[in-house]
């Protein structure tokens, strides 16, 4: 928080010496140049038009579409992975990855939205749900709760500090599996859509320090 005060003051009828001028001018220049310091700037000294685009932040808007799990399949080809399958792959399934290049150290703001429509109950009247989460460079940064609505919009919003460099946002989902009426834990053989997905969009705003 280096502050700069008057090093030399040029007064009326004094010599306009180079050295004296430099000392006064350097002090002023320091405010706006190398020593730029938000605490030594007057309030509202910098207005948005003065700032180059992306000088303080970088914004990404990406449409996120993926092969939405829509139907049950067979035991050999489950099509997608649900919680209750015997072939259980760990719950969340990576849907898509979005690369964010050229980030600086600061805060990352992520917003993910989409709409989903579920087969609300299976043929056993078990409630169905869908759940999304966001991972940043492999770390879970935001995880939504299970959503049981038949049709709904799904939002995930989070802010977290990041290091500089490139980043990857992974969007993952999990959805309850359809349960066959005769085999409570087996893959459904009925070819019924269980979830529709669309309108996915990821907004990422990196704000630098």
């Amino acid at each position, binding site marked *: 928080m280096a502050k700069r005060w*008057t090093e030399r*003051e040029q007064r009326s009828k004094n010599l*306009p010496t180079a050295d004296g001028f430099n000392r006064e001018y350097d002090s002023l220049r320091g405010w706006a140049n190398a020593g730029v310091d938000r605490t030594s700037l007057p309030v509202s000294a910098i207005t948005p038009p003065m700032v180059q685009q992306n000088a303080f932040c970088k914004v990404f808007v990406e449409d996120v579409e993926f092969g939405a799990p829509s139907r049950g399949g067979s035991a050999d080809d489950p099509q997608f992975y649900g919680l209750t399958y015997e072939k259980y792959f760990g719950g969340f399934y990576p849907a898509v990855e979005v690369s964010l290049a050229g980030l600086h150290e600061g805060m990352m703001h992520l917003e993910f939205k989409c709409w989903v429509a579920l087969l609300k109950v299976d043929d056993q009247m078990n409630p169905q749900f869908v759940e999304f989460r966001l991972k940043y460079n492999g770390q879970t940064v935001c995880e939504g709760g299970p959503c049981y609505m038949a049709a709904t919009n799904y939002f995930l919003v989070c802010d977290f500090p990041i290091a500089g460099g490139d980043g990857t946002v992974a969007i993952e989902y999990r959805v309850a599996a359809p349960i066959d009426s005769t085999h409570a834990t087996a893959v459904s053989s009925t070819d019924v859509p269980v979830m529709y997905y669309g309108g996915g969009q990821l907004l990422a705003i990196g704000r630098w320090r």
Partner: protein
Amino acid sequence: MKGKRFEQTPLGGVSELIPQADKAATEIVNFTVHNQTSGWDNRIGYERYLSSTGGTFAPFDSLGRIDSLFIWSRHQGAQQWVVFESGGTLYYLKDYGSSRAIEALDVLRTTPTATEAPASYAPYGRFLYTVNGNDKPVRYGAWPHGGSITSPTAPVYDVGWASLPPSPTPWGVHTRPEDGAQFGGSIAIWARGNQQSLAPLSGFPFNLTYRTLDWESAWNAIGLGDEKPSRKMAEDGTFAVAQIFSSYRYKVSFINNAGSESPVSQASGLVVWSQPESLNIAPGEGDVTVYHPEFGGKRWIVGLEIPAGPVGTIARKIYRTKDLGDGTEAAEVYYYVGQVTNNTETFYFDNLGDNQQITLAPVDGDSTIFPATSARFCSIFKDCLFIDGGSSNETAVFWSNPGFPDTFRATDYADVGTREGGGITGFHAHYNYLLILRQRSVDYVSGNYPDFRISPLSQSVGTTAANAINTIPDLGVIFLANDGVYVVHGGFEGGAVVEIKRISDPIMKTIERMNKDALPRAVACYSHKWKEWHCYFAADGHDRPNLGIVLHLDKMAWSVRENFPVGALSTTFDGDIVFGHVEGQTSETGQAGLFVITGRRTLSKKAEVSSEAGKQQGQIVLVDNVAPIARYRSKWHDFGDPNKKKKVHFVYLYALTGGDNTIPMTYFKDYDYVGTAAPAARPQMPDAPDQGIYDSIKTDLGLWEEERLTEFRYPISQGSCSNFQFEIQTTNDVVLVGYALELTSPEGTKIVQGKRV
């Protein structure tokens, strides 16, 4: 002219001795050292600390005198927290965000009297420790703030521990499942089993007064005490063995965010239980008993209510005895049980086996309540916080555990009162010792924790100026005492010799103007940027600092500062000298708040707009005030022989050219008070075309000018004299490199005979 020429260059500092040293001056007021020429430069002044706050002294407009000031630099100067006291409130300057503001850290504090030292500050680790002798000591964490982003709360905490933690409250352990609600607040919880095997629990009326645990199989090896047998009633209704008891006591302590552990609490009440036994469920109506053999050989778990600590507590530690049997079978020795790493949960389940208790609890004397709540001075030395005992215990010194400034052992104190010297008036840590300033002596602390030694350094020097002591690199510790300025240099270890020496003899007359009663309000600081030690004190009967003395390290010479309204003093990380106004809003100029000593010459003052375009009449604005008046008065020159009369014809000032602002001169003879004015001279080269000046040149044409070393000649006309002196006094800029006097000395003219009665 066939005269003698008498040169004085380079110029020295002030000498108020009689006779004066060569190259010395009688007065040097408001000058600093000009690095290029080693001359005296008067281009100094002061300006607002927040120079970007428009036409006011905001946010300080309403403040009066600044009593104390500390600029706390953190992260290599990246953060500078300005903490100051004014009008009984401890503030910090909120110097970020959308608007600058002053925020109160502590209110309703005692405003120090004119003869009382203001707050003392000691930064250590993440916190700034502040004591003032009257109010609760404050520990300030600066950053990060607590609370919400929009309305943050300053992180302010107590220093040390004001009281013992309350004792924890263990819930009773209920070992018979048949007992129900009459044991309200108790519940049987036991180990070595699983929940299913304890089916009777399910029949219990569970409500809010009961607490239970879901059983984890991993807990089977834990629980308090031994696996004591249960007791079965014989058919005749008696027991073959006596009741078997288990009992424990608990203590807690708090851990604060500085890592300090509080004193441990008093012991809790005894929690005691007996082993399960057969129960006659229908006394007097036959031998109907129930007995649960599965309850034998169990361990047990205690539910414990633990107190929450004061603000700043981040964890609580729990200590427990080992099994005390019936409560008297064993000595109460406490061991560490566990730590609750928050300050919110109030219930703790203790399932730690006795054989897992290894670490002994601190004893009562390891950490005590804060020993000196009215401490006046504090300092960090060898990682320990040193405080004095306050005005009612003014010869006591306490020190904290190293690394934990809030933890004080009961035995870590000393009393310096056994020697003459008076009460403690300040601390200052330097090199490998801590100076203890006292009213009539100076002591020092050396050694390492816990073996600190206190020894006297001087029993002839004393001071009450707690805030006028600083370290000057390579020189030592400098401080203002009752009779001058002293330097302590050297060391106490490795064969080094320590020396204490008075260095203010050249300015003895100025020192004698000092109001000694107001010494506790004297302030000083060393600036590595200016290479100056500044000290301001009350003089000439004032009740607050009104005169400054400056030691210029470049020349090891003294000068004086006048009309710098310094009430409190500190330096930034970069070495800029920041001061708090000595009067504040009630001052003649309306100046209030914090200011920086800089190259700005015209000081702002408040004024009402009378008529100016774009301004409303009566509006208060800041206008330029006059620059500080600089005064250089030469020594009294006797030119080697005061008996001989001399005629001084000219004074030549060696100075840098400065433009058309004139430099007036007055000259004196023979210690006279009233002088004669010489024609003022413009600091331009006399026999060369004038250099360009602001107001009449165009800076984009021609060459930039440079200051030139030149001589300005002042004619003197005062007849013959024994001693000669001249003075320049100006608000215009001048860089004085030296001077020469030209004189003739008529043969045979001597001083007249001494006066007779």
